[in-house]
């Protein structure tokens, strides 16, 4: 009896240890497989010549930046830097517009009392689930009549009026979690609703605003449908549209530069992701942001 006890325990500890090692192995093996395509893209963009396409290896003897140099020259006489500048321009304005309009609506829903609030809130939640295509055509007709086609306005103006209801919801959830005592004591001190918004709600919701800014940026950066719909002039193209030009200009020779520019287009996403990881996890876990 006295001899078996420790034996059973070490046996159990060994089993637990083995289970953990097995978990690590599974996670790593699966992770490597999953990341292989991205790693291959990066590796291929750095290999010289046109033999890259069917070579599955990640490491090669020679290394070259030729695809980057060629890709940066762009397609159809337009420098790829133009596409970067255009995309950054749209993204920055979208982020600012979203933060202002969504936080205003969120403050109203989370803290203020007004007639028909429950109705509007319900409608707002429903619009999150609404497929965008039911508004696409009339919006196109409307923006066309304003002369907005082939400008960035159809991508930016809707954000000024909080059409990304998803972020309103995210901010409502966050603001509801803030202690109400602060508002109440501020009210006693004679602070108005507007004052509370600027002095209390905005500073305290910084984390949720970072999450909003982050996803606004990334979704606009990766957007394709709206850019395809509204932008016609190559000089106004975004990165998504610019990358597509490589595909249209066919021929094997454009794969290399296209890969190189694809890698460049991912760098801002990586930088944001790795520097603001905490906000990603918070944003996804608290509201279940769609992938």
């Amino acid at each position, binding site marked *: 009896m006295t001899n078996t006890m420790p034996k059973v325990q070490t046996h159990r500890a060994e089993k637990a240890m083995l289970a953990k090692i097995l978990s690590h192995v599974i996670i790593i093996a699966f992770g490597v497989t999953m990341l292989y395509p991205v790693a291959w893209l990066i590796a291929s963009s750095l290999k010289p010549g046109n033999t890259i396409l069917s070579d599955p290896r990640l490491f090669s003897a020679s290394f070259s930046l030729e695809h980057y140099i060629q890709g940066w020259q762009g397609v159809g006489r337009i420098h790829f830097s133009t596409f970067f500048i255009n995309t950054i321009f749209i993204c920055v304005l979208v982020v600012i517009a979203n933060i202002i*309009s969504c936080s205003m609506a969120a403050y109203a829903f989370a803290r203020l009392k007004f007639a028909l609030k429950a109705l509007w809130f319900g409608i707002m939640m429903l619009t999150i689930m609404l497929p965008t295509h039911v508004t696409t055509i009339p919006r196109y007709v409307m923006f066309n009549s304003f002369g907005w086609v082939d400008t960035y306005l159809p991508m930016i103006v809707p954000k000024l009026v909080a059409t990304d209801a998803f972020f309103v919801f995210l901010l409502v959830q966050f603001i509801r979690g803030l202690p109400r005592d602060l508002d109440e004591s501020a009210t006693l001190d004679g602070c108005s609703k507007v004052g509370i918004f600027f002095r209390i709600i905005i500073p305290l919701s910084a984390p949720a605003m970072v999450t909003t800014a982050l996803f606004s940026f990334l979704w606009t950066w990766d957007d394709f449908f709206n850019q395809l719909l509204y932008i016609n002039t190559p000089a106004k193209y975004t990165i998504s549209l610019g990358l597509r030009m490589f595909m249209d200009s066919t021929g094997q020779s454009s794969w290399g530069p296209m890969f190189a520019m*694809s890698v460049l*287009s991912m760098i801002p996403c990586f930088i944001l992701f790795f520097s603001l990881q905490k906000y990603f996890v918070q944003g996804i876990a608290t509201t279940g942001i769609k992938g």
Partner: protein
Amino acid sequence: MKKRAFMDSRDNLSGYLFLAPWLLGFLILTLYPMLQSLYYSFTQFDMLTAPQWIGADNYVKMFTGDPTYLKSLQVTFTFVFLGVPLKLAFALLIALIMNQKLRMIGFYRTVYYIPTLLGGSVAIAMLWRQLFSGEGVVNAILGSFFGLTNLPSWIANPQYALYTLVLLTVWQFGSSMIIFLAGLKQIPDEYYEAASVDGAGKLVKFFRITLPSLSPVILFNLVMQMISSFQAFTQAFIISAGRGGPLDSTMFYTLYLYIKGFYHFEMGYASAMAWTLLVIIAVITAVIFKSSGNWVSYGSGD
């Protein structure tokens, strides 16, 4: 009494002041366009001339005189009903493996999120196009490691093209995984301990504790993923070079809608398609919610 009314109107004033941008956006950019596209759906409309009322003709044609439309429905349903459950199953499986006190768990979680971070972009869609082409890397690997020959071009073969897109969406399971991980952390350890005392095995614990406790999260993920999968566009557009081929095998619903509306300028027809999509999504969402009474449990009672 008077003071009360005064306060109310002041409350209303500040409430609507802050709500104004959203309300404006809802009325002008959501509600009005919705009603307008409903009207367009009963017309013939090419944007150059005024819409012509044709009754339900667009809807009738969709279901009786347009094989490409029916094909797009079939393709999209296959994509959604295959892609979403597979994606959620993978996300749950990986979340379960990760839900232990492992070292480097933060790092793993980060790495697994990378495909989701990049997956929706044009860059990844083009990469996929290359990976699964006839001379692509997938075939090179299958050839050199498994000695397989005569492999097809996966994206150019109507039998397989759609499945490369399913794989692409399953690959992006990262955000569902993070939501599941957060859900798993909420399940109290006592449940598992009590079950262990009762002599329950791992499988029993999974089906009796883990799945029921996670069911609200699964419901939420299922609905949101379903809605966004029905609207998938970029990947199909890039992989098929904007044509939905080969043989319409990647003709996603929204891609066909785009082609009808903006290549052929059949805006009335495209609007009818949009409203039909709305109805399809609404019906499926309603069915899921209705059925959820049987499989979703809230609270700690059960």
